[in-house]
């Protein structure tokens, strides 16, 4: 993690990455609002104008972050596209690549 990157892992195995330079230019900070889901409580807060974790990375990994992806989707629509959530699905990419080798395309690649 560098000064301008906030990165953490979740219980589900996702890697969530905030590009804080983009966040600096974001006027809405939509991720903070989106993070307030009913009953679950937030994991993000604004600190010195930047999104920051309310919990330690260990607590986040234990399940404080519920993998709701609300922050990423809100950021795409109303923020500055500064959040990416990577969630690898082991073996799926290999499967799709295997189809491609046989000249078969999935519907979303047609």
């Amino acid at each position: 993690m560098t000064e301008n990157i906030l990165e953490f892992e979740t219980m589900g195995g996702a890697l969530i990455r905030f590009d804080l330079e983009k966040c600096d230019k974001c006027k809405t900070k939509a991720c903070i609002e989106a993070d307030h889901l009913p009953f679950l409580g937030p994991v993000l807060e604004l600190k010195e104008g930047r999104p920051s974790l309310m919990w330690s990375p260990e607590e986040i990994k234990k399940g404080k972050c519920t993998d709701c992806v609300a922050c990423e989707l809100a950021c795409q629509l109303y923020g500055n596209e500064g959040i990416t959530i990577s969630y690898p699905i082991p073996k799926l990419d290999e499967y799709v690549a295997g189809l491609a080798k046989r000249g078969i395309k999935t519907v979303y690649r047609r």
Partner: protein
Amino acid sequence: MPRLMEYQGKEIFKKNRIAVPEGEIAQFPEEARDIAKKLGGVVAVKAQVLTGKRGKAGAIRFAKTPEEAEKVAAEILAAKIDNLPVEKVLVEEMLDIKREIYMGVTSSDATRAPVAIFSLSGGMDIEEVAESHPEKIATGDISINRGFHQYDALNMLRKLKELSSGEINTYAQILARLYTIYRQNDCKLVEINPLVVTEKGIFAADARIDIDDDAVWRHPELGMEQFEEAGAREPTDLEIAAGQIDKNDHRGSAHFVQIDPDASRAKEHKKIPIGYHCVGAGCAITLFDEISPLGYSPLDFCDTSGNPTSLKLYAAVKIILSQPEIKGYLFATGMAAQLLDNTARGIIKALKELYPETGGKPNIPCVFAFRGRSDEVAVQLFKEHGISDSPWVKMLRRDFSEKTAAEEFDKLYKKWEKEGGGI
């Protein structure tokens, strides 16, 4: 169902002091020849495939010489048994069988507990014996808390008058060990059929071990892939991929099975293959009954319920839409208590990644039907992200029935087909 190959099962038997015939595994015919040479005498060459009735399928053959073992192994390794390729053969000493016995421990639906089963007629289907010769069978219900000890097995086997006290002692010991294997490996079934009596002693001539699919993750030592139970066949690549979703995350569940992996059944019945996804298996079954008569054939069965995370939905959607033959995607929830806004977010994230050029608007007809907690937010999210503006997306909320969901899908599909579709 996750099942071990015979040779893997026999390894476990050996570790638990249940004798098995001398033998080794071979991947190439030459290896089979060398093993046969080492063993000496007549050997059995047995295909290692996860299917029953190998004997009838010609997957178990005998060889008198190492050269014959090589030839037989080459033939078996080149064959398909029950449409499954044979990658390994087990080469074993042939036993001089005096008597065949059956014994097993399985999970009983009736008692919701393990049950030990013993039959004097081995080598036959236990169900068949239970029907024709019930007097040859002894069973014992097992308390999971108390366990199953040798003396329990002794009490159980005493009912079989045909057995001598010495035999009862020997079989009870093996049966108790079988239960240990059942518990230690989180099994659904551990079976020896047949357990053979020879001059040399008593041996497990076959081994069947089925692991509870929900417990596979607890046994990395078995080297098994985690996947949803899909009958006797081996899992498909997509089922294995889907099996990873719940692997390390207990929050909600994603069950995915390919009913018709290559769409051959859909083609045979001239039905339109679709991707199928529900929240709640009850909804899934009911909707299945509504969509099938309209001429559609779901290629998969997927249920993501128990309040799974958005990312589990995301993964499930990507997997469903990776079935190359589908011509539509039908998603519906039962009256769900789970957070459907989270469900929607996972679907939206997947669609936006799969269709980056259109911002998530799919090129096949899709019905998204939400009923239950936060369903209004779910529908609103699709609108906010512009996905429901797609001509090939129909959103339904709260007041739909399975029948109307199926009819709406049918209408949308026909429009899509008429207008040339997005593909």
